[in-house]
């Protein structure tokens, strides 16, 4: 291994374990260290610096697609004559991992900085930073893992950090409820993930992704089972990335501190689901991808519709996050791998920014989160306001922002997918969501920053946040500008980012794949499984002639771009018409579509549905089983005991009256005989002698032989 590569691996390990060291330090010696917050923040900035170095090195200078470090973690030996059981684990750095490293450490360090002010004076300030460290460690672990098992391990660990951070203010019932809900809902998805892993391992005897892909390419795992494995692993992503139908936990997770929401529930952890799908992308079959695309599209639509009606600033952002995550998932589902990942990165920046900005607002408004009590904050908080606007433009997909680049790629991909498969529902939903996104984002801005202040008391006390909070906003806002990703503001294709993030070729059998990456002229010839190395294959594919997919992309790129831009602008306009210029009375509009509004306002009644079915059902089942256990099973046991006792009573009676009766009778009878013959028993020795002698004489005469 080249020295650069081993250096990068060591550095990656350092990045991974630094936050863990910080966590341990704060948990065990938290009280003894001065300024614990700065320790952890410093650690994160160190990690950021190293990550940037790793990314630059990897993306621009290292030619190998993947740097890998694998070690044997567990070896159970082998049953004689059979394949042994061992588990290899390790880390790998490829381009997307390197980019994710930077994203995670960047957002994390900015959030750390932001929290210095936001969380100041909190009861469990040290604990808060410790958990942030634990989270960073786990998230980096997901990023660096080169195998499904470690991903699962860190997957659970981010889950637990998320649990701890959502429940940071656990004195509030709502907070502890929300943390519990988040963990359990995630667990549901994780079970699917777990089963998927089991399918993969049982068929291929390895967790290492490269060997998994190799095995699938060698047809060791095919057919419906492969599809099932893909969908089941995707279940993990459904949970973590809050996709329909497991999206219900994310809005509740807003009970946690706002910086946590920014870091975990907007930028990184929830994006881990998308990252996971990207990681396993080569093994997904066409059916699995279709499922993924639909789940993503449905999620994007549902969340966007709900976001339009919400009044809590963080809830709006939460649904917006779900919606955007749906976009990314949908992108992966429609085979727009690069676009999905691109959106993940850009979204991380602007959504973290949005949350931090909302945090800034909440901080200024003394923990007021209801937008109906805000308004007119533009003048009080100019930096926050402008950052907010930039983020909103970015999420709405307005040109010259990063969001425009990534979102446009996704929409183009969806459109191409529709073109190739005839399945237009997905692009239609995609475009609908563009409109909704722009509308609810600007509704948020207008309600918060424009117009007249509604709560004058809080308005009076509001002021711009301190520098530690605004500087992260400025950094994130600047990262929402196109130049960081591509110099061409309208087409990111040739930018470094999309050059670095190339779609890996599918390893599934040709019959089970979309077949988009096959040349236009010759659909059937190339079968990917003949070429084991997925990464090489992707490079190959790019170099050869135009594939069907590229052709479709070519066809839809500019029309799609125009359409999305139009819809976004319309959405912004709609928001202004209703909420700023008040051409249409929002209240009247609500009244007119009251059933729809109520339905949306209540989040499509998902929570109620789950409470009524899954939760209540489980509790009912558990109660009835406990009853069953206590009364039936234990009843049988106790009944057996009672029966035994009854039996023993009966047999006791039997014993007393029959058996003992016989004994007593025989005793009585003997006594009777005794009484009858006691006259013989005179107690006089002589009598006995007489009888003895008479006996002797009798015997003598009886037995004499003459």
């Amino acid at each position, binding site marked *: 291994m080249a020295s650069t590569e081993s250096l990068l691996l060591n550095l990656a390990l350092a990045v991974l374990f630094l936050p863990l060291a910080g966590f341990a330090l704060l948990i065990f010696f938290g009280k003894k260290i001065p300024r614990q917050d700065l320790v952890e923040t410093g650690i994160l900035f160190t990690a950021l610096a190293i990550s940037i170095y790793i990314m630059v090195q990897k993306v621009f200078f290292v030619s190998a697609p993947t740097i890998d470090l694998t070690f044997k973690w567990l070896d*159970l030996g082998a*049953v004689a004559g059979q394949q042994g059981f061992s588990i290899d684990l390790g880390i790998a750095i490829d381009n997307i991992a390197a980019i994710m490293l930077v994203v995670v450490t960047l957002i994390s360090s900015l959030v750390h900085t932001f929290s210095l002010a936001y969380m100041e004076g909190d009861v469990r300030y040290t604990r808060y930073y410790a958990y942030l460290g634990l989270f960073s460690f786990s998230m980096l672990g997901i990023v660096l893992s080169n195998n499904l098992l470690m991903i699962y391990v860190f997957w659970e660990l981010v889950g637990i950090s998320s649990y701890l951070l959502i429940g940071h203010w656990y004195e509030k019932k709502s907070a502890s409820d929300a943390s519990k809900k988040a963990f359990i809902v995630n667990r549901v998805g994780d079970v699917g993930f777990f*089963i998927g892993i089991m399918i993969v391992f049982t068929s291929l005897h390895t967790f290492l992704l490269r060997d998994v892909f190799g095995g699938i390419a060698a047809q060791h795992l095919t057919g419906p089972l492969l599809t099932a494995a893909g969908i089941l692993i995707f279940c993990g992503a459904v949970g973590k990335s809050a996709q329909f139908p497991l999206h219900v936990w994310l809005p509740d997770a807003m009970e946690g501190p706002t910086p946590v929401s920014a870091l975990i529930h907007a930028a990184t952890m929830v994006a881990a689901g998308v990252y996971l799908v990207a990681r396993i992308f080569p093994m997904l079959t066409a059916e699995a991808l279709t499922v993924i695309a639909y789940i993503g599209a449905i999620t994007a639509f549902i969340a966007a519709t709900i976001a339009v009606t919400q009044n809590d600033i963080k809830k709006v952002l939460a649904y917006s996050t779900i919606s955007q995550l749906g976009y990314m998932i949908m992108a992966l589902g429609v085979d727009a791998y690069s676009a999905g990942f691109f959106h993940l990165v850009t979204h991380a920046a602007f959504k973290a920014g949005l949350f931090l900005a909302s945090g800034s607002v909440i901080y200024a408004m003394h923990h007021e989160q209801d937008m109906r009590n805000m308004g007119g904050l533009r003048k009080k908080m100019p930096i926050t306001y402008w950052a907010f606007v930039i983020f909103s433009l970015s999420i709405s997909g307005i040109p010259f922002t990063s969001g425009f680049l990534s979102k446009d790629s996704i929409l183009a991909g969806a459109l191409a997918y529709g073109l190739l498969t005839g399945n237009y529902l997905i692009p239609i939903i995609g475009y609908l969501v563009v409109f909704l996104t722009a509308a609810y984002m600007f509704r948020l801005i207008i309600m918060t920053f424009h117009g007249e202040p509604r709560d004058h008391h809080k308005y009076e006390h509001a002021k711009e946040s301190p520098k530690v909070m605004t500087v992260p906003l400025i950094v994130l806002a600047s990262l929402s500008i196109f130049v960081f990703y591509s110099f061409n503001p309208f087409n990111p294709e040739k930018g470094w980012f999309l050059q670095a993030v190339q779609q890996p070729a599918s390893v599934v059998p040709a019959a089970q794949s979309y077949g988009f990456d096959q040349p236009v002229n010759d659909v059937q010839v190339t079968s990917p499984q003949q070429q084991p190395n997925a990464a090489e294959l992707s490079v190959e594919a790019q170099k050869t002639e135009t594939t069907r997919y590229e052709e479709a992309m070519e066809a839809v790129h500019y029309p799609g771009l125009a359409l999305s831009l139009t819809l976004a602008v319309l959405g912004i306009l709609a928001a202004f018409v209703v909420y700023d210029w008040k051409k249409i009375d929002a209240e009247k509009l609500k009244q007119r579509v009251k059933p729809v509004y109520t339905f949306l306002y209540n989040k499509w009644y998902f929570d109620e549905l789950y409470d009524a079915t899954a939760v209540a059902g*489980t509790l009912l089942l*558990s109660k009835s089983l406990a009853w069953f256990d206590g009364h039936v099973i234990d009843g049988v*046991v106790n009944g057996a*005991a009672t029966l035994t006792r009854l039996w023993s009573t009966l047999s006791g009676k039997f014993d007393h009256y029959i058996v003992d009766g016989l004994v007593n009778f025989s005793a009585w009878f003997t006594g009777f005989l005794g009484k009858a013959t006691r006259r013989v028993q005179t107690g006089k020795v002589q009598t006995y002698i007489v009888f003895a002698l008479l006996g002797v004489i009798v015997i003598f005469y009886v037995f004499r032989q003459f």
Partner: protein
Amino acid sequence: MQYQFLGIGYLTWITFLPLIGMAVVLLIPKSNINAMKWTALAATILQLVLAAIIWVNFKPSLSGINDPNGFQFVEKTRWIDLPGVAWFGHVAVDYFLGIDGLSLPMVMLTALISFVGVIASWNIGKSQKGYFALYLLLDTGMMGVFVALDMFLFYVFWELMLLPMYFLIGIWGGPRREYAAIKFFLYTLLGSVLILLVMLGLYFSVNVTDPATGQAMHTFDMLAMMNPQNYDPHALFAGIGTYWRYVAFIALFIGFAIKVPIFPFHTWLPDAHVEAPTAISVILAGVLLKMGTYGFLRISFPIFPDAVLKFSYALAILGFINIVYGALCAMAQTDFKKLIAYSSISHMGVVLLGIAALNTQGVAGGVLQMFNHGVVTAMLFLIVGVIYDRAHTRGVNDFGGLANQMPVYTGIMTVAFFAAIGLPGLSEFISELLSYLGAFQTFRWIAIFSSIGIVLTAGYMLWTLQRVFLGQLPEKWKGLTDVNGRELVSLVPLMVVVILLGVFPSIMLHPMSATLNNLVDFIHKVGTGMTALK
């Protein structure tokens, strides 16, 4: 022999050290309670040290199970030798001790839990002399079960541990202690009877050559029972896959299942746990339950491999029922101890599921789960004990907000709870992972349905966590103090083990792998009749 101290083998020492301690305790005057405690503690610490020495000297490459040369620290002498007994003929019982990769984790677990249990017994309120004497006797019985290789000896230890347990629950227990103790005793005794019957059946079926006299004789040697060629062709249990072998396997299974406990033989467990004092709950959940599954692996499986192969599906289904049923029942409980008791049932289901898979990873996962569950459940019961000592109630709904009042306690508890949930990085994750992986390979659908248990476990554990530790602190608990030094001494070693094994499971898996591979191989080869019969 190499591993001896004062001419007596290590295993004898580790088994009978507590008995020496018991003798000392009995000699101590009644008033000197401290001396008794320290004697008990010294005995268990010595035991732990000895266990560590055994651990260090253990050779992981040896296979054990059916191979007399695969056992280590073997001690074998004639114990009972009666040349002519009516019906039985020449009765010879060996004092046959030895460990392999299967018993090693159990020996470690017993030593560790016994040590922790003594510390948890520090505040026993009445007749300490009797308590510690019985406790040490119990310790000897438990250790003996895990090192005995002669079935008769095994049975003796098995019964030996029953009696002190009965008294420990029945005298030092809670309000319904008599009911619980009798239930425990009768239930276990029922199992013992079945084991005894099968043991006698096996005894009469097996013929070996007596090395001393060169004559054929019956034997209680487990290893001899595992070899199909030792069976008298006309005996009850001769052959492979014969009717009576299935019957015997089921009887033996029920005998051990009661101990595990496996649905529907589990109802003694919640009662016993609720009534038993903390330390006894710890021992009960930590060690005693493992004896059942240990019995499966040590006796049922290798002696009746054909029956195991036939019934493995049923075993897996029982494992599934245990997992889901236990978890659901736990969810409905409001008594903290009862909740953990049901969670034990659920977790022991994972063991059953793993070992029913009959492949390396499944069995290894099962055995590791036995160890891990022992440690984690011991922690959970200690935790309940801590809170019960202070608040004198175990109602989950009576608490709330303890996290602020008792931060260190909450921290330790969180580790234990998350270990029980199966959080990666903590020990139970590895064992559950391996068990499920093994089960998935053999019984795909059962493994999938069982994994519902993962969600349910998270559900009731977190719900409990929330009800007890989160939220507002009720006014009446303002006076509760955090864990004290003694409680930390009992909790921290367990916590270290939990985390250590969560990160480096190889520590525990490596010594057992050769043995378990041999076990799996043996079951498949002998169970399908691949080894020629006489």
